[in-house]
């Protein structure tokens, strides 16, 4: 029996390859994710070990109100006086963004844009050209900034810090040992110490941290313990090793999330893979009916038949896992290199490794997925009666009652799980519900396949080959249905997300047009490195002085400690202008200018935090003492503005006492464009900040959805590729199955081109059927999600019509592409051999 199975397996290499390919791709995705994140993890660990290699111990002020604190200059001497300290150097670090020669701010893909005080310690760096900064108008930049912005020694460079752009001269360019331009893709500029303190910290004679070198004979740990006991609890003392580990851990946390996302998409790809393998095995079992029946009639037991199919699946799963693991290693290495070169920019990769997690998950996933897919066909194979060996035709089509009932039940269960998932905000329930819904729909698909296929096919059957193709696709509803259902999954997910995003865009646009009276919005871009742009508070007064401006106000926000919990705190310059432009209504109390220790809150916030008029909260901002704020009024529920605001007097206590954004309303009759032109010059020296009218602002805000959609499409491409493999597989197996028919058609005069057209039509019908299913299911998922998110502000329902049409067209193209190989194979059949084919 074992030998018979293996022989049968080997004699059908093509179908082995095709069904294994689906698993290979899924496993590749899984192992590739692990290899990628593992390599990046180790690279970042190396990076931070390198960064902190010159630091024995570092002293920083305890974090205050969620923002890093600063140290007075006197602390340096205090630290240096401690026994065992060889040297203590005050460091200044902050954000400094250079402006490129085209006037735009230079960005990174996530690495920081740093400004620092040049300490003259060149042990960690290599000077490439020039010197350190000698005067207050000089900077020395790293080679990566020099190459990114095209700067040479002697060039002018503009930098944005806490203050708007300032002009400097490049005094020197430095790199790192090993010819590296940066440590990990960061852009950095070193100022003289006083300039760095003023521009990066906003305060003379302060430092962000003190880098301590231990005297000979004192270990890092000893020095740390000594410093913490000498300095007291207001300071954080860490060893360089600890700092490197902390930073690496933080990055690893982010990468872990990234890995989960990749694995989720790998899961979807494998889910689709199950459909393909299931279908392949079903077809193979159907084609082997006589062979299996012969084995049965010769005395093979049911168990042996099941074993034979399961063994075949196991071998395929095993081979696919090995190949997928290898391919995943390659893909992971490729992506890591891509990330290092383009994504992170200049990250030095640690060697590509094969983590155990990749090996284990590859084999587990590859084999388990294949076995799951083979269970049903194996059971079916075991039910083949021995007498089938003597019969001419294959088993007739079984009734669709059972799959239909099962499908309806599973679909209902999936829908219920999704509903609970939304209520309990459980991603696992939602995701599981969606997958169950897919399975349910897939089981229901054979039922709708006959009418649907005949409808789609009618569009393509103007000629005889077209008609035959259409009839062939309607021939085996289960086979067509599963093949189409595989394609459905990917398209449904994209359509679902697309419906939600389109609805969100529609909701935001409607909200902005109906409830926001601001005509102009001033906002800054947020860099990939987390820096946000800001501008001076007095800009608001300058704007208000311009003719045509009715009102203007701005927000400044930062994390702070609210009742000892870290939370985001906003300050508004003019609460009345906010009320007026955002159309807010008072719920408790009345809108009035806020006093220095007063706050205003939204109804939602009041309910959530159990606050009312006159309640107090203790808020510790970045600077100054903790203050008790009293609720002066509560505004009624609003889609535009939720949360809490402090008075404008709180702004000066923020770490960055500047505004993040501002809103301007013009007088009725005044031209928005004219006002925009008149206030734009205020931001001429701040290219990170832009003034936009309302619709442009909304468009910019919603354009990020396009990026989300694009990312999802790219990640789902694999699921769709696997589905296309499924179409190819089904067609190829059908071609084999219908060899005699093809031979007959050729014998009675069908041209090769006509044979190819016939196969292509069948392929297009299956693909378009899958796309139609996907769009329908995706729309249902999207509508359900939008309904569930009604309270989150998605009040409008929008449909991405263009996108849907595109998917249909893509599906037709996919159908044509998938048909190429099977069609060529069919057309190349030798007529005589085909007629004689058993």
């Amino acid at each position, binding site marked *: 029996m074992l030998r018979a199975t293996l022989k049968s397996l080997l004699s059908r290499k093509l179908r082995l390859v095709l069904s294994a390919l689906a698993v290979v791709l899924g496993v590749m995705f899984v192992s590739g994710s692990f290899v990628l994140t593992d390599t990046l993890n180790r690279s970042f660990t190396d990076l931070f070990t390198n960064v902190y290699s010159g630091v024995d111990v570092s002293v920083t002020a305890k974090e205050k109100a969620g923002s890093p604190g600063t140290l007075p200059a006197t602390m340096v001497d205090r630290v240096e006086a401690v026994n065992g300290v060889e040297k203590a150097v005050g460091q200044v670090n902050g954000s400094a963004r250079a402006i490129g020669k085209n006037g735009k701010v230079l960005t990174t893909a996530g690495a920081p844009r740093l400004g620092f005080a040049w300490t003259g310690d060149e042990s960690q760096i290599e000077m490439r050209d020039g010197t350190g900064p000698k005067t207050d108008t000089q900077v020395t930049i790293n080679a990566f900034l020099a190459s990114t912005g095209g700067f040479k020694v002697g060039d002018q460079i503009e930098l944005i810090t806490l203050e708007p752009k300032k002009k400097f001269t490049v005094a020197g360019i430095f790199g790192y040992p090993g010819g590296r331009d940066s440590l990990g893709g960061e852009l950095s500029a070193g100022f003289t110490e006083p300039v760095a303190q003023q521009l990066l910290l906003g305060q003379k004679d302060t430092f962000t941290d003190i880098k301590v070198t231990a005297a000979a004979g004192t270990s890092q740990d000893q020095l740390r313990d000594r410093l913490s006991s000498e300095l007291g609890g207001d300071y954080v003392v860490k060893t360089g090793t600890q700092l490197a580990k902390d930073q690496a851990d933080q990055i690893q946390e982010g990468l872990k999330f990234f890995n989960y996302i990749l694995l989720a998409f790998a899961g979807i790809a494998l889910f689709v893979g199950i459909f393909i393998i299931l279908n392949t095995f079903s077809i193979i079992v159907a084609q082997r009916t006589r062979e299996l029946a012969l084995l049965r009639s010769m005395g093979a037991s049911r168990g042996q038949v099941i074993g034979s199919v399961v063994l075949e699946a196991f071998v395929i799963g095993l081979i696919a896992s090995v190949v997928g693991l290898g391919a995943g290693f390659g893909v992971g290495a490729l992506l890591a290199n891509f990330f290092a070169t383009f994504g992170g920019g200049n990250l030095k990769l640690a060697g590509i490794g094969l983590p155990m997690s990749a090996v284990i998950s590859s084999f587990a996933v590859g084999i388990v997925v294949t076995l799951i897919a083979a269970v049903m066909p194996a059971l079916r194979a075991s039910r083949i009666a021995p007498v089938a060996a003597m019969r001419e*035709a294959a088993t007739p089509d079984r009734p669709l009652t059972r799959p239909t009932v099962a499908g309806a039940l599973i679909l209902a269960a999936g829908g219920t799980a999704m509903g609970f998932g939304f209520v309990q905000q459980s991603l696992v329930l939602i995701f599981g519900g969606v997958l169950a819904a897919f399975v349910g729909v897939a089981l229901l698909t054979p039922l709708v396949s006959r009418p649907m296929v005949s409808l789609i096919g009618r569009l393509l059957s103007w*000629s*005889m*080959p077209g*008609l*035959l193709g259409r*009839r*062939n696709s*309607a*021939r085996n509803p289960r086979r067509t249905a599963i093949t189409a259902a595989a394609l459905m999954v990917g398209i449904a997910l994209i359509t679902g997300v697309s419906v939600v995003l389109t609805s969100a865009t529609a909701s935001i646009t409607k909200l902005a047009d109906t409830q926001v009276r601001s005509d102009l919005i001033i906002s800054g871009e947020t860099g990939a490195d987390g820096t946000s742009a800001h501008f001076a508070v007095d800009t608001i007064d300058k704007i208000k002085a311009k003719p045509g401006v009715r009102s203007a106000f701005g927000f400044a926000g930062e994390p702070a400690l609210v009742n000892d919990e870290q939370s985001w705190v906003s300050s508004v310059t003019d609460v009345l202008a906010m009320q007026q432009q955002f159309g807010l209504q008072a719920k408790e109390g009345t809108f009035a200018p806020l006093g220095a220790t007063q706050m205003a809150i939204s109804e939602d916030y009041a309910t959530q935090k159990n606050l009312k008029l006159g309640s107090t909260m203790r808020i510790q901002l970045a600077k100054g003492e903790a203050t008790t704020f009293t609720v002066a009024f509560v505004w009624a529920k609003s889609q535009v503005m939720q949360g809490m605001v402090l008075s404008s007097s709180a702004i000066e206590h923020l770490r960055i006492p500047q505004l993040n954004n501002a809103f301007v309303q013009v007088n009725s009759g005044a031209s928005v464009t004219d006002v925009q032109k008149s206030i734009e010059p205020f931001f001429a020296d701040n290219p990170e900040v832009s003034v936009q009218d309302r619709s442009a602002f909304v468009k910019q805000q919603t354009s990020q959805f396009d990026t989300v959609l694009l990312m999802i499409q790219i990640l789902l491409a694999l699921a769709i590729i696997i589905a296309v493999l499924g179409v190819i597989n089904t067609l190829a197996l059908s071609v084999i199955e219908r060899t*005699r*028919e093809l031979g*007959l*058609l*050729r*014998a*009675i*005069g*069908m*041209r*090769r081109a*006509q044979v190819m057209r016939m196969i292509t039509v069948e392929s297009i019908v299956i693909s378009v059927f899958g796309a139609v299913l996907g769009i329908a299911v995706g729309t249902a998922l999207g509508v359900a999600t939008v309904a569930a998110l009604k309270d989150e502000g998605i009040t409008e329902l929008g449909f991405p019509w263009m996108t849907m049409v595109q998917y249909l067209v893509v599906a037709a193209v996919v159908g044509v592409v998938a048909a190429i190989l099977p069609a060529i194979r069919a057309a190349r059949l030798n*007529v*005589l051999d085909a*007629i004689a084919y058993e």
Partner: protein
Amino acid sequence: MGTSGVAASAVDVWKSYGSGDAAVTALAGVSVEFERERFTAIMGPSGSGKSTLMHCLAGLDDVTKGEVWIGDTKVTGLKDKGLTELRRDQVGFVFQQFNLLPTLTAEENITLPLAIGGRKVDRAWFDTVIDTVGLRDRLSHRPTQLSGGQQQRVACARALVSRPEVVFADEPTGNLDSRSGAEVLGFLQKSAREFGQTIVMVTHDPNAASYADRVIFLADGLIVNEILDPTADAVLETMKHLDAFVGAQ
């Protein structure tokens, strides 16, 4: 060649498979003409080359040496496109089994060669053929709803409906019981006699061969005998001699 009285002919046709020592010669210089409007049967024991001869005549297989003609068309040397058109327009086929497309109705199967070629159906001729094979009330049935004999009659109708130069039938009764077989053979005979359809049939059944106007006998790749207006007994007698002849070699 291509004289008006000949529908198909082979001129010194050789066919061998393989090469060197392993080469097998299936046809060793066969020359034969099939006159128009006649029903010819090709007989011979297994391995005599009768099927090969038919395949070569029909353009399903190429010859190693010699020439094959269908009507005025020289089949030898035609490329796939030419062969396809030849099969579509000038040749009809009836095979032993699995003759029909399961997705099409009987009527669609019959008109398939015309549909493939984009030609119109001659309704009058179609009706004549249908009535002759007696399938009028089965036209909308699918092949699985027809008996074996009915299926084979559909295949015969399909071969005739495009009025080809020659209909080639490869053991058309091989899979049928004797009564259904007789119906099919009777129909083929009638087609030749009443409609003037040239028919070439390969068979190993003397009784089937007796429906033909002429029987040619093949052995070891050569034509060794021929009978006009055969009876089953005459054919059987000749076959016996043939076996003796083959045995003597």
